[in-house]
């Protein structure tokens, strides 16, 4: 999978976004979300955008709404011991074989959505974004029994579990 870019190139789609400026992408880098995201059920097409100066952040930009853009991080940066558990519904949506355990990085990309919490950011690792790198299908996995918890970025730039 190729991450989209902020610069222009030929034979690519273009969107003028609210937060990232002009973003271009080709069909190979577009994500398909069969059910959207909770709270954003109509957002079925997203573009993962990486900005070099902000690595390892990955921005998930909506194709449909220029103002909708999420900020995310690979889950292993937040929690190196992240335990990937997918439900049957997740596997079906991602078109993954339930019997096989997908490998993070080679089969799937797992992202933690960041949100504001006071003067810093936090994330819920019980609701990671899972992208099948083989077909670009994407879901937000909600596994009730995962119990990975919430993490917050502290003043030292370290992720700490808060509950």
């Amino acid at each position, binding site marked *: 999978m190729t991450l989209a870019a*902020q610069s222009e190139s030929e034979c690519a789609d273009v969107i003028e976004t*609210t937060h990232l400026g002009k973003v271009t992408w080709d069909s190979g880098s577009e994500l398909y979300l069969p059910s959207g995201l909770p*709270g954003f059920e109509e957002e079925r097409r997203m573009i993962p955008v990486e900005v070099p*100066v902000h*690595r*390892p952040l990955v921005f998930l930009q909506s194709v449909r709404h220029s103002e909708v853009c999420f900020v995310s991080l690979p889950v292993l940066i937040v929690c190196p011991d992240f335990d990937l558990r997918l439900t049957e519904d997740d596997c079906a949506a991602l078109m993954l074989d339930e019997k096989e355990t997908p490998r993070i990085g080679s089969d799937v990309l797992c992202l933690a*959505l960041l949100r504001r919490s006071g*003067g*810093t950011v936090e994330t819920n690792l019980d609701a990671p974004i899972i992208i099948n790198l083989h077909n670009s299908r994407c879901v937000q996995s909600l596994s009730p029994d995962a119990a990975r918890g919430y993490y917050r*970025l502290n003043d030292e730039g370290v992720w700490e579990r808060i509950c």
Partner: protein
Amino acid sequence: MLIVRRRAGEAIVVAGDVEIEVIEITRTRVKLGVRAPREVSVTRREAQTVASENRNAAGLLAACAVDADILGFFGKISGKGAKTAEGTADM
């Protein structure tokens, strides 16, 4: 709370036009099918909390534009100063 015993293939109806059918029962899970008008929102309970969190998450970049503390988190994560830049990358 109303408690109703149902078998696979049986259903209940809520408010006249929302039908919830038991599709399959396994040792640890029940598969439900829901037929409802398009305007009726049907979500898993855990998705309601996440929906609220996602709406907050979608506002993070807007918050960065008006709150220097939030903007600073970019620098903490990347180890560089928070600023706007352009570029591309493969993965």
